[in-house]
């Protein structure tokens, strides 16, 4: 059998056709494989790239990973316009269609349960950054410490203001998370983002995902918007709406920041 099967998502049958020009992972337009009343969205991918060994090697290639991630997201995005897809993790590959069918049969009940839970919901991402501390005033060198005691006093006040800023950012993030959790049906905390990968300035103090009914999205976005100008030195970023990637798992996701954030409540 030539080609492996890359599965993007599982959904319930839908009547609106997917956009025709959609090119999936490895350039193969996604096909619909219906089995037991569920639809797996599948691309044929070459074994040379997607068998376990080459796939593992490719995943260490950021450019390759980026291409696959964008293609995967493109298909999920298109699905989101016609149904509520249950996204699978990147790199879910089967040997052939019968492998996909077997997988559907094995997880049928769990898929239906999760699809019911996610129906009509989207995910919003909210990140909070503490902006990098502004450089000390240009005038500061003029105020050279006259004595060792002055020097220590200056040091102490600098450290103190850094600590205060950090504490305020933590408090802000915790409060924002609590507010948004009340509007959302569910929430997940992702690990803070690595600035080397994000290229974002400042320190990421909150990286959260919220499950929100489509109908409640406007209110949710408004809540995020209201934080505008609340606190200097803090930046809030909103992404979405996403398919409910962060809420697709059956079990609570590993989330490093859960433990660091005892105040954060997770509804189940």
């Amino acid at each position, binding site marked *: 059998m030539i080609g492996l099967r890359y599965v993007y998502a599982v959904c319930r049958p839908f009547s609106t056709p997917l956009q025709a020009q959609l090119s999936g992972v490895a350039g193969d337009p996604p096909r619909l494989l219906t089995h037991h009343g569920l639809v797996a969205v599948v691309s044929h991918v070459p074994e040379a790239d997607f068998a376990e060994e080459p796939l593992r090697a490719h995943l260490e290639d950021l450019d390759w990973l980026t291409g696959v991630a964008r293609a995967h997201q493109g298909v999920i995005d298109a699905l989101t316009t016609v149904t509520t897809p249950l996204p699978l993790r990147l*790199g*879910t590959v089967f040997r052939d269609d019968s492998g996909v069918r077997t997988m559907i049969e094995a997880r049928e009940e769990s898929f239906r349960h999760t699809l019911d839970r996610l129906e009509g919901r989207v995910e919003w991402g909210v990140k909070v950054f503490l902006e990098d501390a502004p450089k000390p005033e240009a005038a500061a060198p003029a105020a050279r410490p006259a004595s060792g005691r002055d020097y220590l006093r200056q040091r102490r006040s600098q450290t103190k203001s850094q600590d205060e800023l950090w504490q305020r950012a933590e408090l802000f993030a915790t409060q924002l998370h609590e507010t948004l959790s009340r509007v959302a049906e569910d929430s997940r905390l992702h690990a803070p983002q690595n600035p080397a990968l994000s290229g*974002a300035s400042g320190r990421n103090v909150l990286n959260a995902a919220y499950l929100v009914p489509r109908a409640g999205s406007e209110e949710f976005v408004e809540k995020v918007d209201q*934080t505008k100008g609340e606190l200097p030195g803090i930046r809030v970023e909103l*992404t979405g709406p996403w398919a409910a990637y962060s809420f697709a798992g059956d079990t609570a996701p590993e989330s490093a920041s859960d433990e660091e954030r005892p105040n954060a409540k997770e509804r189940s």
Partner: protein
Amino acid sequence: MTVVERREIALVDLLDRLLAGGVVITGDITLRIADVDLVRIDLNALISSVNANVPSPFEESR
């Protein structure tokens, strides 16, 4: 403070979801869950090798 709503999806936000989210299925030749965790570690190693001034928070595990 500004709320920035970006239409263009940042890779890092995408990877948060595609590598840490989504249903994990161990199929006949899918990567196992443990391997997917390794992807994240490898990715961090990869990034730090690109940005040598940012040390990886993870040890090389293999």
